[in-house]
């Protein structure tokens, strides 16, 4: 089958128009989860944070864990889309749109987790009005809003030609809401050389700006912990540790998204083994760096056992946090790396499994950083315990469902593969070569 711009356009537009029974059922189930989460949240607002498992000593729990996790997920999107664009890696083209969707959805979800963690969300504006510049929480609020705005602008600029394509090809056939959306946001894009040049310049500028903004955002998130007077968080390495961890989990999340999109939209021709294996290499690279940081951190702190860091190391090694910590090390870091190093597991399914495990591992890592750090008693008490309540879990599931809903909605508003980027980077020819090679291998 010859892969041309037309076949790609047709495939992406068909994917936009296809509302399978499975899609609709999934959508409705997710809406159900979101409603359940909203009901639990209203009850939490009425009764206060007492309905959660958090108390005076464990003041941050699952909400902040999920906040850090989703901030990390967004980093993967920026890394794949913008950083690989800077490095001029053409193979990113069919992945970058999904990565951009993940960035924006993850950032919106992450910000909602902050609201979930607030007893009085109506006072959120006070941090803008009366917040002290000396506080990392204020930096985080400004960083998050800047990163979210930048990611939305970046996504919009990247999706603009494709929105115009949809408007021109199937604008009349779309339902009124999507038609209005496409007409409104495709502006007056016609593909005129002057427009193309302006867009190219804007995207280049945004690419250069959004990568440091993303890195800064993750560093500032790590500073919320690193600048608190708690020994387990007292590490200058936290910034880069969070950034690499974010790339690791973010790349993994994109792989999962790619796999589902490929299966659901029949995109096997455009998302080939090569794309998955390249993502697998990125995952393995980030995972390797994570292992290196982990060893470096444990050896230097463990050798000295200075102050209260001893408590943290004991609780991780064979204390209350040990099951979580060792699951993270083996399931979240070692097994994904092994899956990518062994030739016979270096397949699409292998990359998928490694990505899922990486995300499970990173979720556990965020948990023991947040909760484990707070377990350290600052007075002569027993370390406190924390167990998320049903309310908390319902709100967390509801917000995770909202994240998936946002992704599913975005995929129906604009093409899930960037046609423009596929043309620019010559990926259409590259996927043709992939198909030829696969055919030759099958014949052989």
């Amino acid at each position, binding site marked *: 089958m010859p892969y041309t711009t037309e076949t790609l356009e047709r495939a992406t537009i068909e994917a936009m128009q296809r509302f399978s029974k499975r899609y609709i059922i999934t959508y409705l189930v997710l809406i159900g989860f979101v409603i359940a989460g909203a009901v639990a949240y209203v009850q939490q607002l009425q009764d206060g944070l007492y309905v959660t498992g958090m108390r005076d000593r464990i003041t941050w729990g699952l909400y902040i864990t999920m906040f850090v996790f989703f901030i990390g997920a967004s980093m993967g999107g920026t890394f794949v889309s913008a950083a690989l664009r800077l490095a001029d890696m053409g193979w990113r083209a069919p992945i970058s749109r999904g990565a951009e969707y993940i960035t924006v959805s993850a950032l919106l979800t992450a910000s909602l987790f902050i609201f979930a963690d607030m007893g009085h969300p109506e006072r959120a504006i006070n941090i803008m009005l009366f917040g002290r510049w000396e506080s990392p929480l204020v930096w985080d609020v400004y960083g998050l809003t800047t990163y979210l*705005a*930048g990611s939305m602008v970046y996504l919009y600029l990247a999706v603009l030609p494709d929105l115009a394509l949809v408007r*021109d090809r199937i604008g009349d056939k779309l339902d009124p809401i999507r038609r209005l959306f496409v007409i409104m946001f495709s502006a007056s894009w*016609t593909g*005129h050389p*002057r427009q193309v*040049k302006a867009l190219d310049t804007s995207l280049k500028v*945004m690419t250069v700006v959004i990568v440091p903004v993303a890195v800064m955002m993750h560093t500032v998130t790590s500073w919320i912990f690193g600048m608190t007077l708690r020994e387990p968080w007292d590490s200058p390495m936290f910034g880069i540790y969070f950034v690499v961890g974010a790339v690791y989990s973010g790349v993994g999340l994109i792989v999962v998204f790619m796999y589902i999109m490929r299966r659901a939209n029949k995109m096997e021709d455009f998302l080939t083994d090569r794309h998955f294996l390249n993502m697998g290499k990125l995952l393995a690279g980030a995972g390797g760096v994570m292992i290196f940081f982990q060893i470096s951190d444990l050896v230097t702190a463990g050798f000295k056992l200075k102050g209260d860091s001893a408590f943290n190391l004991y609780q991780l090694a064979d204390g209350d946090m040990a099951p979580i910590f060792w699951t993270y090390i083996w399931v979240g870091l070692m097994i994904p790396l092994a899956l990518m190093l062994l030739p016979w597991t270096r397949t699409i399914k292998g990359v998928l499994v490694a990505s899922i495990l990486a995300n499970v591992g990173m979720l556990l890592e965020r948990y023991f950083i947040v909760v484990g750090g707070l377990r350290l008693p600052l007075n002569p008490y027993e370390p406190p315990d924390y167990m998320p309540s049903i309310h908390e879990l319902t709100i967390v599931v509801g917000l995770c469902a909202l994240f998936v809903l946002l992704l599913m909605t975005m995929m129906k508003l604009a093409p899930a593969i960037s046609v423009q980027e596929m043309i620019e980077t010559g990926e259409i020819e590259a996927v043709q070569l992939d198909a030829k090679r696969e055919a030759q291998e099958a014949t052989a």
Partner: protein
Amino acid sequence: MMSLLKKSSHNLRHMLGLIVLVTVLMGAMGWSAVASAQQPVPSINLGFVESAIPGETITVSAYLTDPLGSPIYDAEIHFSYNVEFMNVSDAVDIGTAITDDTGLALVTWQPRSDGENAIVASFAGNDVFTEAIDTQTLEVLPGPQLYRELPPYRIPGANMWLTTGLITTVWMIFIFSLALVGWANLKTRNAPHNSDAVKEGESDA
């Protein structure tokens, strides 16, 4: 008539029972009060240095004796000091100690800040003796403070204005990027569509 008599007798028995119960209770309370009043009142005497400086380890002692001046041993003495912080005053624990054969209980303590510190030693009482308390003031002289404020750590040039400028610049770049494309779109909105040109080319072919 008989039933009326029976009922009266029943009520009378109830009333008598109640009177006996109240009498017993009042008797018990009275006995308790009398017994309490009869318990000897011990005396407790605090002792420590006249003055100290913040951070200096001092020994706080308390002698517990009965009314005749004999030592009371194996009694728990609780030591605390009164603190006022942000308009709230409360007692902060120093520690507890058990009196020895001479009635002496000892704890060590480091005063945290200068000024007058009211130190309290208290005995909660036991089966034999009632409670006792003594309060003495320790003058803590000005000295090196345990909580001292360091001069702010500043990176030359880094301040709120720099941060504000940086964030504003980033936002301006976002707006510029959008505006650049918007301006180009506006300028060329009446130019022929690229897709139209493609279609025309296809039809020509």
